């Protein structure tokens, strides 16, 4: 587990982030999806905040100022949804960093049928497809405008 020193976030901010992540992306056992408050996902999030730290802190600060830490579960969810929908670029950054860490977690990717690896060097297979679909287009006469003298 990351500490507040690693991420630049205070313990209060980390608690708020954990709670928020779990509200925004809750676990779904039937689909084998962890919640975004999963310890490994949260650790990834805290370790990779980097240049987004200031905006994330600003978004969390606004959430805390609205009483998020002490809110009952139902109230916390309402608060989280409304803040994330209306609180400007800071909330946008916060949402994006949660998504970018969640959707690179190997368990999440496997549950979605994705290969949990970077694209290179393995690459992917792309079907050649049915090029006979092009036949009716091949049959068309040229229709770009020819600007040369004497052109139709």
């Amino acid at each position, binding site marked *: 587990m990351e500490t507040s020193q690693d991420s630049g976030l205070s313990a209060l901010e980390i608690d708020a982030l954990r709670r928020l992540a779990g509200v925004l992306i809750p676990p779904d056992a039937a689909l084998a999806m962890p919640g975004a408050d999963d310890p490994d996902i949260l650790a990834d999030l805290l370790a990779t905040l980097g240049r987004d730290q200031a905006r994330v802190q600003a978004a969390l600060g606004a959430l805390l100022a609205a009483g998020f830490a002490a809110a009952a579960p139902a109230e916390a969810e309402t608060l989280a949804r409304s803040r994330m929908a209306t609180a400007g670029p800071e909330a946008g950054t916060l949402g994006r960093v949660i998504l970018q860490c969640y959707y690179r977690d190997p368990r999440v990717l496997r549950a979605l049928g994705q290969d949990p690896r970077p694209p290179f060097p393995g690459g992917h297979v792309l079907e050649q*497809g049915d090029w006979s679909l092009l036949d009716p287009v091949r049959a068309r006469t040229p*229709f770009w405008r020819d600007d040369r003298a004497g052109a139709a």
Partner: protein
Amino acid sequence: MTRNETVDVLIIGSGASGAAVAWSLAETRMNILCLEQGDWTRPTDFPANGRDWEARRYGDFAISPNERARVTDYPVNDADSPMKVANFNGVGGGTIFYTAHFPRLHPSDFRVRSLDGVASDWPIDYWALEPFFAENDRMMGVSGLAGDPGVPARDPPMPPIPLGRTGAAYARAMNRLGWHWWPSDTTVATTEYDGRAACINLGHCTPGCAQGAKASTDITYWPRALRAGVKLRPRCRVREITLNEHGMAAGAIYYDADGAECFQPAEMVILAANGIGTPRLLLNSASARCPDGLANSSGLVGRNLMLHPWPQVSGYVAETVDGGRGPMTSLWSKQFYETDPARDFVRGYTLQFARGAGPVAEAVDSLAAGRLPWGEGHHRAFRALLDHRLRIGIACEDLPEAHNRVTLDPELTDSDGIPAPKIDYRIGENTRRMMAHGIARATEIMEAAGATQIGVSPTLNSPGHLLGTARMGTDPEHSVVNPWGRCHDVRNLFIVDGSIWVTSGGVNPTSTIQALALYIADRIKQRLATLFDPG
């Protein structure tokens, strides 16, 4: 200030046009130097190498210099523009960061006044550029398919990118509607080509190709130019071009990687710094002799900025399609490219059919578009989105308007203290009508494909092509450079990038930018004995 040895040719910028002109001029055996403000990018630097491959598109590999914010980037004040700027500052320039879509301007694009009564004709035509298009296709390595009835004949040296499931879905929809479609010309190598490996469908082409299958000029033109004796000096940021007592360009003052101020004398200077970097540099080169900026007696430096408004329509089909597994570029349609008097606008657009996105990009985009909820329902909604997306870009021609312009920001600077550019830009009425038409047609295509959740992207933040800010022409009062790229005001100063475009067409510009650079290099070579003569 350090004063370097004089060179014959100083090129500023190593991207699409700078690399092409450097390679072409190398055969003259002149002493040629290129200054580039950014670095070389190694294949291992590209995001596709790591598990954070998607996240880096929002950070150090963002397409916007303001988001990327590397020390080698300069900021652009784009607060007064609904469209944002895309560029890359490094060896290869914007070709490091393009989608590799490689259409050419059409013949009609050079004749917009004569044919459609708007803007101005170019002083050259498609046919003058045709051999240079072909030469550039060979140098960059183009994949595609001959026989397209929507464009003039050309002969791509490699076969097209596979249709894939996504391409087939588009093809069936377009055939139902009876509309034109064709596999796009791209600079993605579909076979081994000139030392480049074939594409293995990393699916993340835009922020650089770790496989090296996408042609960027650092791996196409530059190796050949360097072997031919051209010198390339990275991490050198030019501040201004100076004049001598005869009003000719004397060279350029730049900051090296250590921030030291240097002067590079040159017999001739070629600007290849893109449609924002070039006017920025000309305006930053104002002096007592030219207080409104260098080469700006017409007052047109920085004006007529064209950015290509590019709405995107997304839809989701029930079948599983390619998602982010394959080059984003797929097919194009020229059905609505040429002017149709029955419409309420002139000129036209290309429809560009793209594949989907990786999981992070799909989630971020869909959240912003309101398709993906937070909380309960998030997971089931996401399963209907990932790998089910079709995405059509509408590449609208952007007509030149003088009020759309690049100026210098009074406060913002880059890391060397050089004033940064500011853009003021509004989308014109003709373009708005064109966008509406394109969105309606793209929606019809989505419906024909059986897509649901059809929606228009809420932003116009990409691609932000940079064109038109130092236009070419025969009249010095109404243009900045002559028909072969030489500044009317400064006879040993040339411009070869997208600045010199008279109109924008409705296509990605890189192919035509490079053909034009090769054309200008050829004109220079033909005129070496009289290159700086008046007239």
